[in-house]
């Protein structure tokens, strides 16, 4: 993104060179080495503590126990991971489509917004997990109930961020669109939606994290069992059986999923915003 800033004109307002700072090789190495090193140190300390103190593995398993469990129990854990992933991403996808569509509908008219306002507040303040038992009764199977829970939880941050974004458009730009006789559709497509992208991306990152949390907590609440159950059920099951290594392995998979969602949503956000938005621009003084 280095911009060739050469111009024939003179004056104070002429070329502003944007020079991409070249980070040195050693700094780039340290940037990765420091956090990874700390993580490795922490795991090593954990291993040493478990080995030296002789704490039983049904209380606290060592990292090697967890790794072994991950390997040997992969046949049980992997299908559970897939179920959790499927529910999380389906819930997030539904929340994205629903949240954005609803936000666009809300900003069309003040009356629509007023009419739907009480529902939005009620849905937002109710702890969604509390309706999981109800959903189990109303839905044909547990999976659907979990999906609805995940959707409801991820829906609101996306909706409220998107509404804020659609309303945050520069008034002079709106005037400019009016001046050139832009249709409502053009205004939405070329102005309001691009202008709300930073807000949408914030909603996406929050919603992505919440969708995973919701799908796990809802599974705890719904108490699914047997085939087709997710990582949350495997966690509870391991606890009942005092199979701590497997519990930790399930936990590790959930963490990895969370990290992956965070990385993916952050990357999408960077991809969309890095050319123009301040939040994604490297700041230098």
């Amino acid at each position, binding site marked *: 993104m280095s*911009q060739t800033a050469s111009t024939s004109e003179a004056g*104070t*307002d002429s070329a*502003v060179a944007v020079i991409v700072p070249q980070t040195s090789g050693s700094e780039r190495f340290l940037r990765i080495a420091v956090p990874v090193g700390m993580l490795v140190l922490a795991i090593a300390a954990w291993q040493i503590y478990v080995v030296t103190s002789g704490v039983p593995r049904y209380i606290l398993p060592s990292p090697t126990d967890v790794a072994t469990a991950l390997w040997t129990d992969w046949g049980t854990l992997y299908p559970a991971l897939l179920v959790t992933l499927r529910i999380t991403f389906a819930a997030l996808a539904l929340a994205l489509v629903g949240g954005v569509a609803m936000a666009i509908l809300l900003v069309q008219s003040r009356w629509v917004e007023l009419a739907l306002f009480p529902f939005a507040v009620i849905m937002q303040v109710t702890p969604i997990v509390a309706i999981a038992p109800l959903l189990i009764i109303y839905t044909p199977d547990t999976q659907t109930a979990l999906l609805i829970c995940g959707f409801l939880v991820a829906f609101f941050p996306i909706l409220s961020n998107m509404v804020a974004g659609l309303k945050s458009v520069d008034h*002079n730009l709106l005037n400019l669109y009016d001046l050139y006789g832009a249709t409502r559709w053009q205004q939405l497509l*070329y102005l309001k939606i691009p202008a709300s992208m930073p807000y949408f991306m914030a909603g996406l990152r929050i919603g992505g994290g919440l969708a995973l949390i919701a799908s796990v907590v809802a599974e705890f609440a719904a108490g699914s069992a047997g085939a087709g159950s997710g990582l949350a059920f495997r966690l509870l099951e391991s606890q009942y059986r005092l199979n701590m290594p497997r519990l930790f392995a399930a936990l590790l998979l959930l963490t990895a999923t969370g990290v992956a969602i965070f990385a993916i949503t952050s990357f999408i956000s960077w991809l969309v915003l890095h050319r123009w938005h301040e939040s994604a*621009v490297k700041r230098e003084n």
Partner: protein
Amino acid sequence: MTDSDSKDAVAGRTGGDDRLVVSMRGVSKIFSNGTLALSDMSLDVRRGEFLSLLGPSGCGKSTALRIIAGLGAPSSGTVAWPSSRINSRGLPEGDVGFVFQEPTLMPWQTVFGNVYLPLKLLGKSKAASRDRIMEALASVGLADFEKAYPRELSGGMKMRVSIARALVTQPKLLLMDEPFAALDEITRQKLNDDVLRLWRETGTTVIFVTHSVFESAFLSNRIVVMKARPGQVFTDLPIATSGSRDAHYRTSEEYRATTDLVSRALQDAIQHGGTA
């Protein structure tokens, strides 16, 4: 000053011909909070004029400009654009360019994308618009910056993009709302020179809102001084110059005399207006 006086004052002494571009008749504007921003304002603008609206803050000069642009209807009175094609909403279609006080660029679009916007909204394809966009960018000295994003540009350069965007439709009327108020003096002088050059080259009509006596005296061939509370035309001054307006003109006795005349008119306007 009555309207017929101003007509006589302008005829023959400015570069404009007799065709009206904008005609305001008894325009008042009351905002929803009860503020009377404009009261019974009449103004005729002829083709080819460079007209400055000068006045203290709160005199409604920006409000008048927005009404001329068709942004917000007057509370009473009429505005007409006699030389423009009028669209179904009763507004001139694609014939008005507007430059705001801030550059008002879309940060997610490149310089090219920002200048393309007016043509895009008028339904022109990118390929068909390319030549006109590059021509507009070249006219403000930014032909090399088509792929840059607004945040990569300085304040003065952003303003140039904004001017290129306003010119890309080849408007009959270019409206500028204190466009250089936020820029430093050196940049402002340079952009003043550029605006004058573009005005001469394109033959467009310019209405320029400013609170700077010096800027209005340098640029205009007609200065309409407004007074505040309520906003009204106070006096209408034709500005004739013998030579061209260049760096030399800035230090000439003629320019000094003009600024003196305009300053006095502004002082009178401020005294006759309500407390600012």
